[in-house]
C-alpha cells in the first residue's frame, strides 16, 4: 500500500521514534493485510476457475432456493479472521501507551499550538510566539493543540503524529526529534478556503542554535 519507502527509511535521516513505532505496527497490518487479501483472492479465483461452465450456453434452472445451512464455514471464517484481527489489534494495543503518552523526561518542553484560519502559531514557555515550530534536537516536546476558530488538524507526517485542533479543547501529542532537519507541518481537516495552504515547518536545530533563537525577542 504505501510507498514502502516511507515506512522503512525516512527521507535522509533516521526516522524519529514515533515514526519507527508507527512503521512497526503498520507493517503488521500491511503484511497481514496483503496476505489475507491474497489468500481470499486466490480462493475466489480458484473457485471461479474450477466451477466455470464448460458446456452449453444456457443457464441451468436455478434450484437455488434450497437449504444450504451450515455453521461450520461461518465459524471457521470468524476464527481465521479473528486470528488476524487479534494479531494486528494486539500490535496497536501494545504500542499505544508508548505512542500516546509523553514520557515527560526532564528537559521536555511544552509548546502550545494554536490553529486558526489559515496558519499555525506556536507559543513557548517563555511566551515567545512563532509561526514556525523550532525545537532543539534530542529533546522531547509536548504539544498542546487547540484552535481559535474552526476545526483544524495538526499533523507532522514524518513523525506520524496528528491530532485535531478543536476550539475549546486541548489535545496533546508529543515528538522526540532525533535529527537536525526540517519537516512539514500541515492541516488535515477542511477548515475553509485556506486549508490547502495551511503549511508550516518543524525546524529541528542544534541545541545551541535553539538557545539563541529561544532567547531572542520578536517572533519568527
Amino acid at each position: 500500500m504505501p510507498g514502502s519507502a516511507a515506512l522503512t527509511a525516512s527521507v535522509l535521516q533516521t526516522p524519529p521514534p514515533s515514526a519507527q513505532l508507527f512503521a512497526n505496527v503498520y507493517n503488521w497490518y500491511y503484511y497481514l493485510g496483503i496476505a489475507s487479501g491474497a489468500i481470499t483472492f486466490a480462493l475466489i479465483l480458484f473457485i471461479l476457475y474450477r466451477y466455470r461452465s464448460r458446456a452449453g450456453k444456457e443457464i441451468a434452472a436455478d434450484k437455488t432456493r434450497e437449504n444450504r445451512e451450515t455453521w461450520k464455514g461461518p465459524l471457521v471464517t470468524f476464527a481465521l479472521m479473528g486470528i488476524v484481527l487479534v494479531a494486528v489489534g494486539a500490535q496497536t494495543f501494545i504500542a499505544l501507551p508508548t505512542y500516546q503518552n509523553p514520557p515527560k523526561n526532564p528537559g521536555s518542553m511544552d509548546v502550545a499550538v494554536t490553529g486558526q484560519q489559515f496558519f499555525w502559531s506556536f507559543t513557548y514557555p517563555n511566551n515567545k510566539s512563532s509561526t514556525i515550530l523550532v525545537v532543539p534536537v534530542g529533546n522531547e516536546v509536548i504539544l498542546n493543540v487547540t484552535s481559535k476558530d474552526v476545526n483544524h488538524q495538526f499533523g507532522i507526517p514524518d513523525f506520524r503524529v496528528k491530532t485535531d485542533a478543536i476550539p475549546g479543547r486541548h489535545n496533546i501529542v508529543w515528538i522526540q526529534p532525533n535529527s537536525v532537519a526540517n519537516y512539514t507541518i500541515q492541516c488535515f481537516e477542511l477548515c475553509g478556503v485556506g486549508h490547502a495552504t495551511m503549511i508550516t515547518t518543524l525546524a529541528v536545530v542544534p541545541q545551541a542554535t535553539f538557545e539563541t533563537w529561544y532567547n531572542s525577542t520578536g517572533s519568527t
Partner: protein
Amino acid sequence: MSHVNEPANEVETLRGGYSPTLAWLRKWLFTTDHKEVGLLYFWTSLWFVAIGGALAGLMRTQLAFPAPWDILSASAYNQAVSMHGLIMVLLFLSPLGAAFSNYFVPLQIGAKDVAYPRFNAFSYWMYLMGGIVMISGFFAPGGAAQAGWTNYAPLDSTLFSPGPGETLVGLGLLLLWGSLTMGGVNLIVTILTMRAPGMTWKKMPPFTWMTLFTQLLLLFSVPSIFVGTLALISDRVFGTVFFLNTAGSTILWENMWWFFGHPEVYVVVLPAFGAIAEVFMVFTGRPLYAKKALLISVGIILMPFSFSIYAHHMFLTGINALQREFIDLNTEINTLPSGLLVVCMALTAVGGTIKFKAPFTFAVAALVVFIIGGITGVFDSSVLLDQELRGTYQVVGHFHYIMVGAAEFGLMAAIYYWLPKWTGMMYSAAIAKLHFITSFVFFNMTFFPMFYLLEMPRRVYTYLASTSWGNINFIETLGAYGFIAAQVLLLYVLVQAFRHKGTPAPPNPWNSSGPEWTSDTKSYLDNYPAVYASPPSGQSAPHVMTAENSRPFTISVGVGLACIGLILWWPLLLIGTVLGVYGVYGWAKDDLNGAFTMPGEEKAGETWPFKQNPGETFGQWRMKVGTWLFLASDLVFFSAIAGLLIFVRLHLTDWPAVGSVFNIPMVTLNTLILVTSGLALMFALQDAKEGKGSEMTRWLVATLILGGSFLIISGFEWVDQFAKQFTFSSGMPGSTFYLLTGISGAHVFAGLLMLAYVIKKAISGKFTRENHFSIRLFSLFWMFVIAMVVILFPAIYLM
C-alpha cells in the same frame, strides 16, 4: 416487461382519455405504483450521479497538477468536494438501492404494492426536492455549501460559512431525512405484514432481507442527524448558538452526524450485497451458502455494532483513551460479518456451473473490490495508525473502494440482472463486457494509487510541487476521466433497453427461481394475476383504481419551493406554503372521500410479530404496525434531543438557576392542560367503544381545545421570554429551550391537525362502535406526544 413505458390503449383509457403527453406527465408525476416509483428513484439517482460525477471530474482536473495550477479556486474546489460527497452518498447510492427495493421487494414477497403507496410516492418526491434544494446552493450568492459533506461545526455555522449555500444544504437534508423515515416505515411494514401466504422469513430472498436491515438501520440512525440538522438550521436561520459554542460545537455535531453517518455506509452497501447474493445464486446455479448464519451475523452483529463504532471517525478529537480502544475493538469485530459476506458469496459458487454474464462479472468485481476496501478499513480502525492516516488520501481510497467499488459495482450487477425484467429487453453483451472492463480498470487506476498518498491531506485544492504527489495525482485523474467516460456505455445500454431497441428478452432469461421473475409482467397495476378490486360505492362508470394521486407531488414541490424561497426569494416561500397546505388538505380530503384505496385487501399471510385483531381490516392492521414503527423512530428522535441536552449540560457549568428564567407555576399548569387533553381523549375513546357518537365528538373537541390552549399558552410563554430578552441567541440555555419546546410544539401542532381530521370524520358520522380506528391510531400518537412533553418538562424547567 414493458407496461411502464408502453402507453397501451387500455392504459390510456384508464387515464381518462388525456392526450398522450398529458397522460405521460400525469403518470409519472402522480403515480403511487411501487414499480413506477422505483423507476423514478432509478432515473433520478442517475441524474444526480451525473452531477456528482461531473464535480469529481472537475476536482480531478484541478488535482492533476501541483500549485500554481488553479483551474478551480479554493472555494470552488471546496464546494465541489462537499457537494460531491453529499450527492454521491445521499442522492445517488442510497436512492439507487431504494429503486431496487421499491421495485422488487413487493414482487419478491408476493405483495401487490408497498404498505403505503402514497407515502411511497411522497418519499420519492421529498428526495427529489431535497436534492434540488441542496444543489440550488450552486446558484446562490456565495456558492454551494463548502464545509465538506460532513458539515463539521463550527465551520458550518454562519460565522464561518456566511452564504446561503450551507443553509440550503441543511434544509434539503431535512427533506431527505423525512423521506428516509417515511420510506423506512413503509418498507418495513410491507415486509412485516404483506408477505403472501407461504412466504416465511426463511423463504424470503436475500435482497428483501438486506432491504429490511437497511431500512431498520435508517429508521434508527436518521433521527439523530435529523435533530442535528434541526439544530444547525436553528443556528443559521434563528440565531441559536448550538454550534458556535465551545460547550456544543464540534463534538456535539460530530456525535450527531456520525451516529447516523456510520450506519449510513452500511445502508449504502447492504442493498448491493443483497443483489450480489441474488446474482451469485442465479449465475452459479447454487443456493446461497449459509444463508441463515449470514443473515444472523448481519442482523445481530453488523447492525447493532454499526451504531456503537461510529466514533472511530472521532479518534483524534481527544475523546477518552478507553473509549477509543473499545471502539477500535468493536470496529474490528464489525469486520467479521463483512468478511462472512465475501466468504458466503464465494462458497456459494462451489459445486456450481458459473456463467460469466455481465451481472455476475460485476458482482465478482464488487466482491473483489470490497475485500480491498475492507482490509484498508482495518488500518483505519487502529487508534494508533489512524493518528497518521486520518484526513489523508488513504481514507479517501478506502471509502471509495467500498462506495464505488462494492456498492456501485454491486448495483450495476443489479441493473444488468434486472434490466430484462424492467424493459423486456436484453442488453448487448459486447457493450456490457466493454463497460465492465473499462469501469474496472479505470476504477482501480483512479483509486488504488491513493494508498500511496498517505501523507497527502484530504480536501485540498492544490499541493506543492515539492511533494512527490504530482505524478500519482496525474494518473488518478486519467483514471477518473476513463471511469467517467466508461459510464457512457451504461447509459447507452439503458437507453436502448428502455426504448425497446435490440433483442427482446424472454420473461425469465436467467432461469432464476427468484419470486420476482414469476410475476405477470403484462399486468399493469397488479403484480400477480388478480382481480381488480370492486369499485368504491357511489362511482358510476366502471372504475379501475389508477394508483394515481397528486398530493405527494404537490406537497413536496410546495415544501421544496418554500425552502428555497425562505433563503433566496420570499415569494417562493409564499407559493410553496400555499401549495403545501393545499396538498395536505387535499390528502385529508381524499381520505375522507375514500378516493384512494389499495387494489384489493387480501388476507394477510405470515403475520409474526404483529397479530391482526378480529374486526380489524387488513389495511387498518398495517396502519397500526406502521404507527408503532414510526413512534419507535420518533422515540429515537426524542432520545437524540435528550442526548443533546445532556451533552450540553455536561459541558456547560454556567446555567441559569432553576426558576430564574421560567415561570414554573405557569408552565406546570400548561403541561397539566396538555395532560388533561389526553384524559379527554380517553373519554372520547370510551364513548366511541360504547357507540355514543355525540358524546365522543364533544370529548374530541374538548381534546382539541385543550391541546390548542397548550399551544397558545406556550406561544405566550415564548413572547414573554422574548420581551425579557431571553431569545434564540441567549446562549445555550436559550438555544436548548427554544429547540426543545419548538420540536415538542411542532409535534403537538401536527397532532392537532390530525385531530381536526378525526373530528371531521366524527361529525360526518364515519365512526361506529366497532370501527373507530382513526381515533385509536390518533390516541397512540397523542399519548406519545404527551409522554414526551411530560418527560422533557423537568429537563427543561427544573434543572
